[in-house]
């Protein structure tokens, strides 16, 4: 019974959204707006659910894991989650305390991790980017021109670098990206249709 009800609700919600997109009919637009508002509320609950799941997993690790590093990492994560949540809920996300934690720990931490990527890329490029065959040669040639074309030094080396770089992005890259986008679009349409018609029932378990 619950399974059938879930499938019917899924079909109706999806059908109304599709119909409202194509037909400008009063009651369909009202229903579409209502469903979107519900969607926003459900997404907010999903964030709360994700937090609960994160707490469950990490409390288990902090208590029962035999690996000391795992225990410490889980404890730090739980303390951070609790600290930011309590301050955010009691003082608000614009309070000085919240801003100190955001600007002093969270933002620089994420920026550091993001910036470290370039060092790993450089090291990996040195050790693994080998021209072992024609395909790898083509990849290296494209990468070199796109990298140099993205910065002013490319034009200093040779005035044709920006034009070659732009051609690589606009022609071969564009063709590949469009193929992927069209493929992903057809896949999304097919997946949506399977969900709406109840062929794919993974969401009802």
């Amino acid at each position: 019974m619950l399974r059938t009800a879930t499938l019917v609700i899924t079909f109706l919600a999806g059908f109304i959204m599709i119909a409202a997109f194509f037909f400008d009919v009063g009651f369909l637009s009202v229903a579409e707006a209502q469903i979107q508002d519900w969607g926003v509320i459900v997404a907010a609950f999903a964030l709360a659910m994700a937090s609960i799941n994160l707490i469950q997993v990490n409390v288990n690790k902090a208590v029962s894991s035999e690996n000391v590093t795992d225990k410490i990492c889980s404890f730090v994560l739980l303390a951070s989650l609790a600290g930011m949540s309590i301050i955010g809920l009691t003082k608000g996300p614009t309070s000085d305390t919240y801003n100190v934690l955001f600007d002093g720990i969270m933002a620089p931490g994420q920026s550091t991790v993001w910036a470290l990527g370039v060092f790993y890329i450089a090291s990996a490029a040195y050790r693994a980017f080998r021209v072992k065959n024609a395909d790898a040669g083509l990849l290296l040639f494209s990468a070199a021109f796109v990298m140099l074309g993205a910065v002013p030094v490319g034009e200093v080396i040779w005035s044709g670098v920006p034009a070659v770089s732009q051609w690589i992005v606009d022609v071969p890259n564009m063709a590949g990206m469009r193929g992927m986008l069209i493929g992903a679009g057809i896949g999304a349409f097919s997946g949506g249709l399977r969900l709406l018609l109840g062929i794919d029932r993974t969401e009802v378990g």
Partner: protein
Amino acid sequence: MLSKLGRIDSRVLYFILLLSFIIPLLRPLGLPMVISDEVQKTYDLIESLPSGSRVVVSFDLSPGGYDELAPATVAVFNHMAMKGIRMVGMSFWDAGPSLLDRSLAGSLYADKEYGTDYVNLGFLAGGENAMSAVARDITGAFPRDFYDRPTANMPIFDGLQAFKDVELVIVVATGNPGVPEWIRQVGDPMDVPIATIVIAGLVADYAPYMQSRQLIGMIPGLRGAAGYEALIDMLGRGTAGLDAQSAAHLMILFFVLIGNIVYFVERKREKDEADEEGAAS
């Protein structure tokens, strides 16, 4: 010598790369500036908007990507503020509103009046679905702003209910939800022009949207920021960082070149040794 070079410690590479960033930051190379078509189009569009126009800026990014996008964001905000354009800021990423506050504080909007010239509406969960809901009814989806003030009575929303009343949407993006979602939910169905300030790593992904005119402007990372700063004649962090980025790109390509020289020389030596062993036996 070459075999030692092949087994060089990663930390040595990290140090050389670090130097390649730091030296140009301390002693700029003064490389010539190139303003790309995408940047020029974004500038032209904002320049063509009359004073009092309303532009939505969606801060869909993480703190990790913010440092790359901040110079371009501040440059665009300065241009908009100089033109008297009103800015409606929002985010569909949880860290977005705090980062938007940082950019606003560093731009000419800091001297403008909150609620009249600009507003930070905060974060709304729900990604693509939430974008569509906001586009239909802005103050309905954001009844209170980031500072918990009611939005309905703010002067900036006089005569502004939905995105059909907005002249432009600028998406500051580092990932998903971001530009494709805005195009699907707002740009195409509502015929609202969309431009983006995006990390350099996503330029190739979004190039098809530029060619199909679903995106009317794109400012890629530091290079875009430097170009925009030159256009508005207010040089800032984008221009300062561009020499460092040039040096880093050159250094990575140099590493690849050295790595391949080592690879080919060692492969040739192994082949010669194998040939000699074969001849001896």
